[in-house]
């Protein structure tokens, strides 16, 4: 990525890690030079448009293919009748990480918005009109759209491989012994990722070799899935994904429409571009499933929790399994002698739900934080005091110690900055000068510190500069910058002396940019690769009688600013270039792997934590709510780039506000169609909705999660924030709204 901007304007003091560098790709993006997938136009490229189903369940009984074909500029119409063959059936499911796709395998319709044909044209306009001319006819069956429709069952697992039931202690005994109890039902709606960049693909075949531009959060998984579907070798697939305009989980796995783009290119024998329309993002590329969560809590006279029971009703599609693991937060967050989480589910005529930023944690957190607030109120306690009273010193359901947990400091620093002290206990006590109701709420943030598997390659070149390669993904979070900082430190070079290559499937596997695990996984792989290269270089020097480092063996050497130095005498050293030149080597290479340490995992519970404080103002008669102030304090181990991390926290906190106040897919209960499938009516906050945001980076040293001490920051900001806002609405109004997003009529006391 030679075009990436350098960082000459930044002063460095020793290492790159920890420096608040600005985005190295920022200039490209703000000047429109960053090339996203849909910006590619290889010679001879055609445009594809999806035709999608308007019914949610049934069969396609007719398509006017002739009318579409006859439209000027239409080159081909791909339907189940002529779709090129695949090596795997799209419904084959080899593992929980493989999801079924709709690739025109038959005439069945399983959700509204399902692709039922692809029209390929010389222009986008021709393809689009061709798709409209197909005028599908259907044999429709009634759509199943609600959490009470169809048979309720207990899924064998939730999320990816998590148990659907966790039992710790005796909840009924805990509730029976409690001095105060609450029971509450919280409801969260279906939500859609709505990345700014829609899913897009430009695919070109050359024989059995396939070249693709498409946004992907996981290049190797995407390549392997495509190889399996088409029965071709992974070496014959090249995917370029330098930039993503947001992913949030919806681009974690290659999605059906992207594969349809590849099939279309196969059919016509020319490069094809397929870009989803905004409304087509509300079906085949995943969403956050709705939940209904029932919480029963008990506490003793001193405010100590005696039991937490958390039951989650959710939904998956009729044809595949992803169950929002909303009970997960309850396993780790608050100490209680009895904790039970259970899940059940129904099957709806929707696209299959998928991971969406803080999958499970977001939905579970808003419900748990609300219930904890209700319990605090029932105990007559300040909600922050109540949370501290029930602080988990060890992970409650496993008894494991935490690898690190600076949550107390988060509470303390966040509360101090926010000015929590003096908050009236009772609701509806505060007004501003204009008579608006004011409320303050708190929520605890938590997210597991995960790692996937990743590899990296580091090279030191004859001129003393370095190259680091990893198939990592920058989806806007700042990987181009943060990973380059780790790369520079790993080689003991300044960031401008390291060429950092990422975003390409030909590079070493970086795992998936998801689970808030990318910086840890890719970072550890880079860290290992750099250290390996340095170790090899040191071996060369220490074995070479002409080197000032000769014989440094036991004392060892350190790498710093392009030089190796004797650890016991830093005046003795030489440059990388000198060592390589004397050895007659053009370069020296190192390899590294990043992965979770199973021993540490066995002994420790690993989570990032945070505390979010929210102020809202509410119009008492009209019910309009505005989050006027949010302060989050988060502890997530070592911070590679505080500027990027702050941005990640802001983004997460905004998602929290959105969850509490704005965001919902409105599904017509008869047709199963999402009726607000556009950014005008599917509300997410605008700048004016968030006048003041603050994120505090609380210091935390974690010696166990990985050698770099990185926990991950991508998702935790959503958790805690949503609950804090909802709790603040209660504190402002005295009305506990348990259905999200909080509606004006509910706050105004007018809900039916």
């Amino acid at each position: 990525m030679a075009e990436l901007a350098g960082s000459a304007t930044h002063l460095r003091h020793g290492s790159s890690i920890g420096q608040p560098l600005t985005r190295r790709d920022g200039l490209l993006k703000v000047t429109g030079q960053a090339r996203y997938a849909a910006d590619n136009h290889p010679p001879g490229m055609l445009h594809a448009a999806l035709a999608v189903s308007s019914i949610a369940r049934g069969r396609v009984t007719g398509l006017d293919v002739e009318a579409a074909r006859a439209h000027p500029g239409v080159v081909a119409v791909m339907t189940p009748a002529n779709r090129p063959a695949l090596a795997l059936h799209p419904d084959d499911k080899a593992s929980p990480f493989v999801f079924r796709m709709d690739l025109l395998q038959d005439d069945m319709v399983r959700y509204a918005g399902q692709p039922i044909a692809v029209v390929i044209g010389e222009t986008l306009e021709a393809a689009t009109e061709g798709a409209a001319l197909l005028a599908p006819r259907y044999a429709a069956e009634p759509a199943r759209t609600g959490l009470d429709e169809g048979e309720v069952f207990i899924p064998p697992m939730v999320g990816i491989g998590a148990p659907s039931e966790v039992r710790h202690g005796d909840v009924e005994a805990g509730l029976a012994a409690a001095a105060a109890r609450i029971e509450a039902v919280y409801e969260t709606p279906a939500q859609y990722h709505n990345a700014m960049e829609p899913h897009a693909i430009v695919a070109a075949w050359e024989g059995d070799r396939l070249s693709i531009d498409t946004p992907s959060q996981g290049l190797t998984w995407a390549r392997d899935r495509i190889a399996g579907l088409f029965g071709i070798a992974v070496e014959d697939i090249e995917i370029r994904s330098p930039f993503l305009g947001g992913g949030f989980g919806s681009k974690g796995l290659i999605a059906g429409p992207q594969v349809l783009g590849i099939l279309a290119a196969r059919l016509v024998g020319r490069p094809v571009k397929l870009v989803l329309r905004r409304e087509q993002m509300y079906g085949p590329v995943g969403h956050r499933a709705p939940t209904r969560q029932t919480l029963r809590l008990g506490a003793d006279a001193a405010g100590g929790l005696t039991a937490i029971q958390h039951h989650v009703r959710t939904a998956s599609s009729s044809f595949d399994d992803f169950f929002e693991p909303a009970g997960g937060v309850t396993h780790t967050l608050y100490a209680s002698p009895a904790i039970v989480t259970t899940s059940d589910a129904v099957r709806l005529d929707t696209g299959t739900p998928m991971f969406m930023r803080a999958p499970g944690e977001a939905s579970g957190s808003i419900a748990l934080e609300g219930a904890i607030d209700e319990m605090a109120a029932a105990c007559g306690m300040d909600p922050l005091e109540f949370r501290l009273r029930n602080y988990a010193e060890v992970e409650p359901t496993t008894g494991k110690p935490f690898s690190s947990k600076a949550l107390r400091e988060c509470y303390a620093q966040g509360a101090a900055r926010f000015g929590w002290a003096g908050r009236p206990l009772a609701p509806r006590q505060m007004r501003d000068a204009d008579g608006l109701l004011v409320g303050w709420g708190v929520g605890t943030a938590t997210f597991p510190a995960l790692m996937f598997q990743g590899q990296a390659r580091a090279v030191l070149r004859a001129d003393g500069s370095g190259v680091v390669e990893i198939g990592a993904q920058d989806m806007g979070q700042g990987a181009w910058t943060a990973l380059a900082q780790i790369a520079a430190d790993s080689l003991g070079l300044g960031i401008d002396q390291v060429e950092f290559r990422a975003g390409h499937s030909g590079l070493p596997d970086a795992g998936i940019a998801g689970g808030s695990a990318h910086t840890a996984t890719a970072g550890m792989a880079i860290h290992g690769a750099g250290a390996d290269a340095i170790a090899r270089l040191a071996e060369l020097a220490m074995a070479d009688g002409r080197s000032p480092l000769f014989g440094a063996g036991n004392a060892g050497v350190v790498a710093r600013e392009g030089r190796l130095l004797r650890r016991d005498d830093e005046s003795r050293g030489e440059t990388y270039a000198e060592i390589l030149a004397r050895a007659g080597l053009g370069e020296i290479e190192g390899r590294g792997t990043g992965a979770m340490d199973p021993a540490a995992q066995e002994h420790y519970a690993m989570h990032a934590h945070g505390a979010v404080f929210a102020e809202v103002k509410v119009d008492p008669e009209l019910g309009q709510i505005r989050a006027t102030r949010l302060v989050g304090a988060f502890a997530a181990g070592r911070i590679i780039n505080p500027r990027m991390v702050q941005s990640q926290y802001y983004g997460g906190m905004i998602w929290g506000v959105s969850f509490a106040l704005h965001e919902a897919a409105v599904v017509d209960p008869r047709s199963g169609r999402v009726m607000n499938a556009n950014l005008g009516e599917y509300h997410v906050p605008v700048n004016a909705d968030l006048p003041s945001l603050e994120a505090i980076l609380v210091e935390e040293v974690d010696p166990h999660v990985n050698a770099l001490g990185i926990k991950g920051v991508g998702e935790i900001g959503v958790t805690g924030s949503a609950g804090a806002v909802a709790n603040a609405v209660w504190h402002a109004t005295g009305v506990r709204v348990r259905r999200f997003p909080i509606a004006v009529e509910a706050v105004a006391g007018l809900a039916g």
Partner: protein
Amino acid sequence: MNRFDYIRPATVAEAVAAAAVPGSAYLAAGTNLLDLMKGGVMRPARLVDLARVPGLDAIEALPDGGLRIGARVRNADLAYDPGFARRFPAVAEALLSGASAQLRNAATVGGNLLQRTRCAYFYDPASACNKREPGAGCDAREGENRLHAVLGWSEQCIATHPSDFCVPLVALGAVVEIEGQAGRREVPLEEFHRLPGTTPERESVLAPGELVVAVRLPGEAAGFAGHARYVKLRERTSYAFAVVSAAACLRLEDGAIAEARLALGGVAAKPWRVPAAEAVLQGARPGAEAFRQAAEAALAEAQPSGENGFKIELARRILVRALTLAAAGTPERLPALPASPLASHSGVSLHG
């Protein structure tokens, strides 16, 4: 996209002649029309682009102290025109509470009057909609209708008109100037939009091919400038249509209301002027009791069209709020959050 003729007339007369062909549609900024075309909701055979037609983009002072606003004046240009905002502050406030800054920079006065409803069933060609396809039925009636009409609706259509701009305009007695093949005519804005009845596809009194060329505010409407507000309840602070909204314009004499001009938005298929409520206030002392009586009168005929009964009380409350703010006096500067209930209430009146 389907193929269509694209005509770029040089004069209003040419435009009107070009649009006389059935299936024509006028194109101004296209902020609504182009979305409708992309979604397959409207498929005009001919677009008559008004971009080059002279004489449609002026804001002219009239001898009676009123203003004549050309149909192609941009929303933002009008809202930030100092003379306009000073004389018609509630209209400026309404304009600035509409859509987003980007849309306001493009969208026009005429387009604002003629924008289509935001009913999701109208935008979804797979749903039944009498407005889109007469006789097809109305899927909103038993569907997701939380934000639909509570006044003036019919079994055939429960959609609302989404404009903010039109609400204070109708309260202030604006007049629409229309050019057609038969010449020029004028219609009070209050009579410009039609209620759905059995023909929801007919949304205004415009005959096919007729063109809105200007909107006129009479000079006497400027007499309300000292006590004129627009308030809009919405589900996010910007870029959201009104759940309910209200314009209240008062002329106070000796501490009493000499004349009130009131209208509601987001409640019906047209901007809803409420003469009964205006009558309640005539001669009354401004205050909570009188305002509440006016609000009761304004919504006397209201009926839920679905799961939206709450809108009736919200509409009463927002009218009371608009009246309260108007009685307190128009602030010298528009609030940073125009028309927002969450804007600071404590504006200082330098008018009237």
